[in-house]
């Protein structure tokens, strides 16, 4: 007895939605998925008519689906947006160069202009070189910090009004869990926001239209629509702390599928006590990027890399900022602490 789609009732169901457990046929699933993203965009008022929007594309499933759905909804509902693709090349051989090929193919398929920025040209370091210096444990910090700046720089070069990224519900939930485990109260408050609200030059607001879409559903969508995407994990990621949060979240999902939305709901409703010290947004004294300290994180990390002190930037060392700024040499004890690297 074939199961019928619970939405249209006449076609055979081909999948069971991970989010709600309903059985749906292909067309109804596509429609439900796209409609949800549309509702998210409309309810959160993410875009205004006539804006230029940069889609952060990595060639992976999230950004491919994002590009596809944005183009589709832009036409279907007349958002009036001008879309562009923006990609970051971290310089990871065997991973990023392959996924960039996918992005280039996407560009042709969706007929959208593409801009690629690379770590090499922005910072003078590729991830491969960084990992050689830093080791396999803390490299994700470098990559993440550099990528954020790279995206912003690329957006300025492209002259877009907004960036949208392919972060999905699983990512946001993992971030909430991670911030609780790390005790990062400032990030905990901000991480569930659907769009960033920083003002000032050098910063382009960014948003997550796929915030309420489950990762599994994105995969199903990409699979059934036969979208072209690159599906390998970053080769340097196995030791990231996020992995713990991810395993936990996957287990939670297997017990109760709505857990992912529950975690996001919890994150959205957290309230922080008054009087808790929060960082204040300022600008970096060296490069002018936004920062809550005297030196922005990427300047600190770069300094560490250039001086051969890989641990500068990992861990707390606010007192060293002044020393770095004024080009003073560090004492021997400090140097020794910062040099030690465990592979």
């Amino acid at each position, binding site marked *: 007895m074939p199961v019928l789609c619970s939405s249209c009732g006449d076609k055979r169901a081909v999948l069971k939605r991970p989010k709600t457990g309903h059985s749906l046929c292909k067309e109804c699933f596509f429609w439900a998925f796209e409609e949800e993203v549309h509702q998210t965009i409309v309810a959160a008022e993410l875009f205004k008519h006539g804006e230029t929007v940069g889609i952060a594309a990595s060639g992976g499933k999230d950004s491919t689906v994002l590009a596809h759905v944005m183009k589709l909804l832009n036409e279907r509902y007349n958002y009036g947006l001008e879309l562009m693709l923006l990609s970051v090349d971290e310089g990871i051989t065997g991973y990023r160069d392959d996924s960039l090929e996918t992005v280039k193919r996407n560009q042709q398929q969706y007929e959208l202009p593409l801009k690629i920025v690379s770590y090499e040209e922005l910072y003078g370091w590729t991830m491969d070189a960084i990992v050689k210096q830093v080791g396999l444990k803390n490299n994700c910090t470098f990559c993440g910090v550099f990528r954020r700046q790279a995206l912003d720089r690329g957006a300025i070069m492209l002259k877009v009004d907004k960036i949208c990224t392919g972060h999905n519900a699983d990512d946001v939930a993992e971030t909430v869990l991670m911030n609780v485990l790390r005790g990062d109260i400032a990030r905990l408050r901000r991480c569930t926001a659907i769009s960033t609200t920083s003002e000032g030059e050098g910063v382009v607001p960014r948003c997550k239209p796929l915030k309420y879409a489950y990762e599994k559903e994105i995969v199903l969508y990409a699979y059934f629509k036969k979208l072209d995407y690159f599906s390998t994990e970053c080769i340097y990621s196995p030791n990231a702390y996020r992995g713990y949060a991810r395993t936990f979240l996957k287990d939670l999902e297997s017990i109760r599928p709505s857990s992912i939305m*529950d975690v996001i709901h919890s994150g959205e*409703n957290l309230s922080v006590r008054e009087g808790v010290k929060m960082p204040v947004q300022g600008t970096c004294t060296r490069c002018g990027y936004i920062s809550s300290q005297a030196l922005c994180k990427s300047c600190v990390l770069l300094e560490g890399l250039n001086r051969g002190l890989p641990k500068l930037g990992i861990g707390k060392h606010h007192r060293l900022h002044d020393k770095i700024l004024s080009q003073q040499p560090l004492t021997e004890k400090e140097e020794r602490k910062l040099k030690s690297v465990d592979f």
Partner: protein
Amino acid sequence: MPENCEISAARHAARNAREQHYRLQTEPCARFALWGEKSYSESTYITLLLFRTAIPQASSGVQGCFKEYFIHKFRAMLGKNRIIFPGEKVLLAVSGGPSSCSMLSQVQEGLSQSAHKKLRFLPGIVYIDEGGALGQSLEERQRTVAELQAVFKATGFPFHIVPLEQVLDLPSSVVVTAPSASERPASAYKEAVDHFIQSNSRSGLTPQGQEDTALPDVEESHTQSLQQLIGCAKTLTAREDLLNTIRFAHTLIPLCPPQRQHLLVHTARTEGYSKLMLGDNCTRLAVKLLTSISLGRGAQLAQDTGFSDCRYGDIISVRPMRDYSAKEIAYYNRMFSVPSVFIPSLDTKTTDKASIQRLTESFVTKLQADFPSTVSTIYRTSEKLQTACKSSSTADQCDRCLLCMSTIDTAVENASAFKATLISEKLSQTKSPGATGTEFPGQNPEPTDLKSLMCYSCQLTVKDLIREKIGEFLLVDDDEG
């Protein structure tokens, strides 16, 4: 005014004496501080204790210091928060486990005449016998209760043994958040203490006599009903959540699955206690925090894991043991022979993935092994969260969740996880439009019943209840098909 000067002078003298006494006690341990980076941190003591078991001679100094540190933390926790006023009746919720028994012994210690700075409240003990919900036999339950009774009798405090089945007996009236006692500002605390010292300095606290409370008889049918109720919850996660809530307060719409929380508050109210003391330790609260997040209880986190919980208005629950890790308590109990009784719970001996609570517990424990600061970091995070405690006179009746009595968090703006879930549900059940997408000829009308009276996570728990089994317990007519 002369009275006040006397009092403050006396207090100064007392403080100086205390500080000196403390310093003397702690100086001999200075050399042990070398073993750890911070003196008196948990790691130091564990190291010292291990050292001590290996070398029996180096014993009394370490033991003494540890005891001092342990007791001091308890007093500091109570003193810092200034919630328990002198002469107040406080109900200690003892489950028989190591944390609550440790708390009991701390209270005993604090009230004893020889204590350095005596505690000043009047304690009583309550134990909730959940054997019925766990399917234990009558003999097993009586055996456990007898063991605990012996422990309680030895303390000399009045105690109450309440079987969980009592929840079914309680009269139906609407769940009421009783008006809280008039707001007592912090300054009033000092005055209250001074006044108390003056009036009671000679007589001391007269402890309440122990009534001879025999184990109340439990009817077989009640136990069966209780098991049925708990059995209505399909998943272990839901069952644990329900059991937890029923312990505390009292939901008088019997549909609502038994709630541990409700029962504790009800007992406190009927027996005239104004405060409730719970024995949750740091490790357990860290697990509870993560579990709450996973269950969607982000809005109520501060109340679930903070020091004080004032959901019920008149009865305030406090958690004085929240600074102690499970390890410390275990060591203390062993070193100073604090009696405790092991009682299984719903998720004892279940697999990792049996329920969300169980999964979180094993996750935190494993993570703690690799990253030893995990539990304390989570604990610190919980301290920074707000307990948004509205005074019950202004809060509307319908602002409170029916099940867990915390403020409802589903009245959120349009762009939120909750709304997104509702939209998904709608979209998966309607015809895909040939027409525009605005008309939704849904099969079910908007549920106007229980769901709208509950907070986000209690809605999820109720979803897990099997409808047919629940039918006989329903007082409210369910409109859903």
